């Protein structure tokens, strides 16, 4: 018996869109957070992608492997949004803020309790901060390859980027992360409150 697709071209686009995208939102959010390091920015990014995708609902009905296709759309939206922000002079403001835009503010603070738990919290924050030092393309290749497990060959197709470029991007990103997350170069006790 042939499998009946839940999607119908005759159905309202809203229903098809809901059926197609609702199961993917969490995945998109997770990936967006890995790109941006911030809950608020990740939600904004996913929202922007959904807005962009709704008019393409019919096209999406014909896509066999939706998730990699969505990841690609998310990636391009992310890179575009970072470039757009960089061009805006208002975004260069540095001054006192409430801090709600700082990526690290969205992370749970290291909690009091067992040392191990505190250490894990500190390590997590260091990882997030180190990721924040990478450029958008480097962050994306780390998120998609090292974390989500897409092979470089898959990314070559998904992101329409040559394999050599991806390898070099990955190499630089990993090298930078290792440099940013070294063994503490100064022994303990070097940083003290005066």
């Amino acid at each position: 018996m042939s499998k009946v697709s839940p999607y119908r071209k005759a159905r309202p686009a809203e229903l098809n869109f809901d059926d197609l995208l609702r199961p993917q939102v969490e995945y998109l959010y997770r990936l967006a957070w890995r790109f941006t390091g911030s809950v608020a920015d990740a939600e904004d990014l996913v929202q922007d992608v959904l807005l962009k995708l709704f008019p393409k609902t019919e096209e999406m009905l014909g896509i066999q492997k939706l998730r990699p296709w969505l990841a690609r759309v998310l990636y391009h939206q992310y890179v575009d949004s970072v470039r757009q922000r960089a061009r805006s002079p208002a975004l260069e403001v540095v001054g006192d803020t409430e801090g709600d835009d700082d990526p690290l503010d969205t992370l749970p603070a290291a909690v009091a309790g067992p040392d191990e738990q505190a250490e894990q919290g500190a390590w997590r924050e260091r990882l997030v901060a180190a990721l924040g030092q990478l450029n958008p393309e480097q962050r994306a290749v780390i998120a998609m390859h090292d974390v989500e497990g897409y092979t470089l060959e898959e990314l070559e197709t998904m992101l329409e980027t040559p394999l050599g470029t991806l390898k070099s991007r990955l190499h630089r990103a990993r090298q930078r992360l290792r440099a940013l997350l070294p063994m503490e170069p100064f022994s303990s006790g070097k940083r003290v409150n005066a």
Partner: protein
Amino acid sequence: MECLEFRSQLDDYLDGRLDERPLREHLSACADCRRMVQHAQAVQEGLRKLSPPEMHPAFVDRAILRATRPSVVDAHPRRRALVGMALAASLVLGLALGAFFSLREAPVQTVALAVEKPETVRMVFNSAKPLRAATLSLSLPENVEVVGYTGQRELTWQTDLREGQNLLQLPLIARGAVKDDLLARLSHGTSTKTFRVKFEIAKANSPGT
């Protein structure tokens, strides 16, 4: 296999893309490369375990509604300006030999060093609030080294700054004439503050003078 060759293939090794036998043989004989692999694997493992915080419970419904029925709700999500932390206003770097000092506006400080005589330069970072996982990068000019890091002109590490004064003791040694400045770059979130340190180099006093 030499270390250089091994390290050029590190990424492929981490991804399991190579015949591992010759690499394993090198690893079993080379403690430095073994440490490098362990470090790389620890970073990768940390990244894989890095799970995002929960999204807002109503986010999925709201996002889909916004996408499909923009007239019902505001089609544009709350747009935040990308602003950084209060680094420019709240951090002060002071540099001195012997007794440290700090200045409100201290982009340039001058430090006296004698050739081949280690001196501990004390850098004071005065923070208005605690900063977790700030990144501090040092770019050293030619002929200045951090003791114990021979030949390394770039040093980067992450640390937490407490509210108030934080002291970093930096053992420096001049190897000869110094023309350029040391740059200390402090980053947190999207903000970076760069401090410049000039050097006055004197020849080390010979014994008895």
